[in-house]
């Protein structure tokens, strides 16, 4: 069945090598609009690399990346414009430490989207409310807890009104008691219909929020399907072994 609307993200035989090291072998993956897909897998399996290929923070060495049907590996595509449609949230937050929260939330709106000062400020206030940090507009990143910083990072991505969001282990750098507040914000986004591609080790989150779970190992997608199937009743030996290790911890 084909739909008239192209998938938000489509990876076709995506490959990536760093020199000799083949990190992604041949990845085929579609994320339709409004879908939440979680990627799980052992360390070094290429999850981050896959995610970074989606907005071309890494240049693929083979295959195609299509965003809304546009092949962004084509050198003629306008990658800077495409990136404004894709929000990205990093494990290490990567907030701009020399700018306060308002500055973090408005700089791309002003420089890239050319929004007015008033418009971008209003937007900053509204996305900050969305992540529950309305009172932090004039704080600097260093004055915030890890969980708050990550929520600001999510707000920063949202401020550009992206169509889809990429998350690379957004809670892995957080103290355990701060994980929940970030996952809550992400669940809110998912419920509001945001297209999301999430690399995570939070199996509870994947199970409750994802429409689909993808298990990766050795640069390949080993298994994918609904969360209850992949996490609850994995078919492949490697998936089973990985999940056993995760749940043992």
């Amino acid at each position: 069945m084909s739909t008239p609307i192209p998938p938000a993200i489509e990876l076709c035989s995506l490959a990536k090598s760093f020199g000799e090291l083949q990190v992604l072998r041949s990845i085929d993956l579609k994320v339709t609009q409004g879908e939440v897909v979680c990627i799980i897998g052992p360390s070094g399996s290429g999850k981050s690399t896959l995610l970074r290929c989606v907005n071309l923070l890494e240049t693929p060495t083979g295959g195609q990346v299509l965003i809304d049907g546009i092949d962004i590996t084509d050198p003629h595509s306008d990658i800077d414009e495409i990136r404004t449609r894709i929000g990205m949230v990093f494990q290490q937050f990567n907030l701009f430490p020399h700018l306060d929260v308002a500055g973090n939330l408005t700089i791309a709106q002003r420089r890239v989207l050319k929004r007015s000062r008033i418009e971008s400020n209003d937007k900053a206030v509204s996305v900050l409310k969305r992540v529950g940090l309305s009172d932090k507009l004039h704080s600097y990143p260093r004055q915030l807890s890890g969980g708050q910083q990550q929520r600001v990072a999510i707000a920063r991505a949202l401020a550009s009104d992206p169509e889809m969001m990429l998350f690379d282990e957004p809670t892995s750098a957080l103290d355990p008691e701060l994980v929940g507040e970030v996952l809550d914000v992400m669940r809110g986004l998912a419920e509001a219909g945001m297209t999301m591609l999430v690399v995570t080790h939070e199996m509870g989150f994947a199970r409750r929020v994802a429409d689909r779970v993808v298990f990766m190992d050795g640069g390949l997608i080993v298994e994918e399907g609904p969360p209850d199937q992949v996490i609850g009743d994995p078919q492949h030996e490697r998936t089973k072994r990985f999940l056993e290790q995760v749940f043992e911890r």
Partner: protein
Amino acid sequence: MTEGHVGVDGIRPPRQTAGMSKRRKAQLRRWAIYVATLVVIAVVVLSADWAKLQSVFLDPQIFRDLFPEIITIAAKNTVILAIFAFSGGLVLGLALALMRLSSVKPYRWAALAYIEFFRGIPALLTLILVGFVLPIALQVRIKQILPFLGDYGTPAVGLAIVAAAYLAETIRGGIEAVPKGQMEAARSLGMTNSQALRSIIIPQAFRVMIPPLTNEFVLLVKDTSLVFVLGVSASSQDLAFFSRAAVQDTLSGTPFIAAALIYLAITLPLTAVSRQLEKRSGDYTSGRKKRAAVAAAEANALEPGGIEPGNFGQAGMPGGNFR
């Protein structure tokens, strides 16, 4: 994670004591040095001819006669020259630093050649090059190109060329000290490489660079003493030339002492302000370093370190290994 914090913040874990004897030995050695220093000072003080020293180096009348010209002409010229040269050096140095970080090999080579050349030859020769060789060889006269700089033009350009070579390496270091994730975050928001450099990378780099930049400025203030090779008129004398001329006139060393005091009056406040700024941005820096330490501690996480020179993005500007 905790260890990362401690290590990076510079609070080293207490070293294992190698027993009292080692500390005791160090203590004894320190005392020996104090005593020796005191003896040397005593010998100098006792054997010096203070009356003669004062008449040669601290003659109050000669000292007073140096004013106001030593301020209104000499110190003024030195400061203005240093400011012009520093500003020019900063702009040129930034361009060279970006070339050094470029993915385009010829840019990297050209910048490196420039830096090595002008750091390798004495500043005096560069001044001669700009003042005498360029006008003859290429018909290039700074005074015609930059008329608004007046008499300062040629010496300021000469000093700026030298300063740029040093500043380029300082600036490059500053840019490389900004964690890679900053460029990635900026680019992921749709900023172009140069937008990201301008609003994210360079502002952060300059904060790290306040102390070394101050240092370069102080060196430049002292380098203004070389511009006499370009010829000096009554109104264009710098502090060093002025005091030398005064020494010849008065046959006293007093003008040297006066000049030294004024150099210090220029440079000491600068280093004090720099230390203050450094302290104020310390909060910010330590926060970032802490986060960098967390990043480093995460197994296989991205290196928080600099931008890899080999990896630069398309426009020949520092970026990631992406376009």
